């Protein structure tokens, strides 16, 4: 009996300890995986999938290729310096005839029109006026006669640029850039260059909302953390109340309050503080007020939890060691709330970046944020490529910010924040 036990023990020591540990842990790991699997699958389909799809759409460019396959093939060897040869004209004429027959000409027209304003007319007029396939050798002349645009290099470079299957066109557009006739990347014409301004505006509004939330939220969080539990719970309900009200209702409430004949203006007039109603809504002010209101809890909660973790003994210790209240606050309390400030600011800032309904309802034309344009291109003009490109740029900028924040927080832990 004892011998058998000993041999058993010896045998098991021959298996490396690491492998035995892995074997012992395996069942636990499988169980843990099974617990998170439903969420993982859900996220894959509702989050990772759509984002990947959006990123793909921002570079996907197969519409022209499908409608004008022979033209694209003929242009493959074209160097783009002069007009293409007769073969390309003949291929284009053939493609247009085929596309008219199958009714797909509008698809190509729409895509080409994004790149060159007026291309839709060129293509549809050509399709309308091209009665028969031109005699061999006369295609260039025939097309040139129908629409003189076919005699221009830009018309053809536009087609070649749109030949796909992937393109940087939408991403460039989202950054107010375009390719000129020689294929070099240049600034877009001023009447189309609006997105950089919109991005800057989006970041500015988000930054001001974050700053406002921090300024307003910090004292509230401090009060919440300092009060005895009974009263702080009551106050916490007031903080959380906005969560339980629809975003739309809250935003509309601000319209009621801030409009020309709204409660605020009427009160100011009645008190004689102003003579004419102030413009409080449909401008940047209204957007910031309404967004701050909506996003405030997202700042207060992380701040509160970081402050709750700071023992009152620290402030007492600082005082007993000779620090006046202000110095104790700045040197002992504030540095310990930095993780909360960071988490709250990042949360509010990133949520604010994606705000759509609130600026759309209480903002003016010059206060619309990037999501407004994404929505516009998705639902109104069906320019999904540009909508996706704008989304991709926003996503990239947000990820960069989050990485910078991560680096800063890490540095915080290493250096302690106060000195160095």
């Amino acid at each position: 009996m004892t011998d058998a036990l000993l041999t058993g023990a010896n045998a098991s020591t021959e298996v490396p300890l690491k492998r035995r540990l892995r074997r012992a842990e395996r069942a636990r790991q499988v169980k843990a995986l099974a617990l998170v699997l439903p969420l993982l699958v859900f996220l894959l389909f509702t989050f990772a999938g759509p984002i990947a799809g959006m990123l793909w759409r921002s570079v996907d460019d197969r519409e022209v290729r499908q409608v004008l396959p022979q033209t694209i093939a003929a242009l493959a060897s074209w160097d783009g310096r002069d007009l293409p040869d007769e073969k390309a004209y003949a291929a284009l004429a053939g493609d247009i005839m085929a596309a008219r027959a199958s009714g797909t000409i509008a698809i190509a027209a729409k895509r080409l029109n994004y790149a060159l304003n007026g291309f839709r007319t060129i293509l549809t007029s050509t399709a309308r006026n091209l009665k028969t396939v031109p005699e061999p050798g006369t295609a260039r002349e025939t097309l040139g006669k129908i629409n003189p645009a076919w005699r221009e290099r830009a018309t053809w470079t536009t087609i070649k640029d749109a030949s796909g299957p992937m393109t940087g066109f939408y991403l460039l557009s989202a950054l107010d850039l375009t390719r000129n006739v020689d294929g070099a990347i240049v600034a877009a014409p001023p009447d189309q260059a609006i997105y950089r301004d919109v991005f800057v505006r989006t970041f500015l509004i988000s930054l001001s909302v974050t700053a406002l939330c921090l300024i307003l939220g910090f004292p509230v969080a401090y009060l919440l953390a300092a009060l005895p539990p009974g009263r702080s719970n009551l106050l916490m309900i007031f903080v959380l109340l906005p969560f339980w009200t629809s975003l739309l209702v809250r935003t509309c409430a601000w319209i009621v309050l801030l409009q020309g004949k709204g409660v605020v203006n009427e009160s100011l007039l009645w008190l004689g503080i102003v003579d004419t109603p102030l413009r409080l809504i449909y401008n940047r002010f209204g957007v910031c007020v309404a967004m701050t209101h909506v996003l405030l809890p997202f700042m207060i909660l992380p701040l509160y939890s970081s402050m709750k973790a700071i023992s009152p003994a620290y402030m007492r210790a600082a005082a007993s060691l000779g620090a006046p209240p202000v110095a104790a606050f700045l040197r002992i309390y504030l540095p310990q709330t930095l993780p909360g400030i960071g988490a709250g600011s990042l949360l509010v800032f990133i949520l604010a970046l994606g705000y759509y309904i609130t600026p759309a309802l209480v903002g003016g034309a010059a206060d619309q944020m990037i999501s407004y344009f994404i929505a516009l291109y998705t639902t109104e003009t069906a320019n999904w490529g540009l909508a996706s490109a704008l989304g991709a740029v926003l996503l990239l900028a947000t990820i960069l910010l989050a990485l910078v924040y991560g680096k800063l927080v890490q540095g915080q832990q290493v250096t302690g924040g106060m000195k160095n």
Partner: protein
Amino acid sequence: MEAGMVTPAPALVRFSGIQKTYDGEHLVVKNLDLDIRKGEFVTLLGPSGSGKTTTLMMLAGFEVPTHGEIIADRPIKNVPPHKRDIGMVFQNYALFPHLTIAENIAFPLSVRNTNKAEAQERVRAALRMIKMENLAQRRPGQLSGGQQQRVALARALVFNPQLVLMDEPLGALDKRLREQMQLEIKQLHETMGITVVYVTHDQSEALTMSDRIAVFNDGIVQQIDRPDALYEHPVNSFVAHFIGENNVLSGTVETVEKGYCRVALAGGGAVTARAVNVSGAGASTSLSVRPERIAIIPNGTSSDQPNRLPAKVQNTIYLGDHALAVLDVADNREFMVKLQPGAHDSLRAGNVRADSLRPGDDVFITFRPEDCLALDPV
């Protein structure tokens, strides 16, 4: 209350008629008068809720006395904590988690705008004092409890405060470390000549470290005295019970004569005791006898002691350096007597050995009248 036996030196801090209430209904501290002399190690000892920590907090400036004055050169009622020049060591150390050990210790110097070179030198000296020079760049979270406590101590001492307060600083440490730290703190007190006010509920800690101990109960200082005086001459049952081990027998005073009284025990029999806190004949009283001041005599042996009581052995408890016999004496069924554990301890002769007692044995106990104190009834 006795005034204490130390030669009076000028008081550094004087509590005068201090009262404190939080709810306006009952007093946490009732009429506290206490002098703390320069260079003294005073311990405030008492069970939780006895008002000792409140007293300390009033001294530190975190609580305001409801009535009375704390005087350190001048009344300090309206002096905020950061201007009191008092170093404080907290129960959970309260080291600033975002600062390194060196920065923690430098904190009191930097808020005082001490010049850089001097501050650095003093921080280095403080680190040397606690033997932690090589851990200066660590953070508090990376240290053990004992190390954190040393840092807290160094931080409270580095700016040479006139007074150092310690609020149960060793409560979170294990027994061995606690005893080691007690000696270290005591040594620091002696070498640096600082004045320490120390709060604890651990009587052995208080006995080990203090010059004087103020025993608190129910918001009142029961007795302030040297450790040995508290042990030998407790003024009432609470102090006798709180300091050291103690056996209690209840009875009624029959006669009082020349500082001694004859007491009839509730469980039968009578003994002579030192009359410490009895009002006179007919009053009920609690007798207090220390376990090490009692002898067990085997049944049948005669003794000339006036205090001789029959007892029945319940069991014996082996404790290494000594043993306890648990006896049934009069009305006390857990009457403890300290004994030698066995034959190998033959150097200290005299008493019966624990291994010669069997549960159920009938024996007699005896003790001298001067070792039996007649105190107020509990």
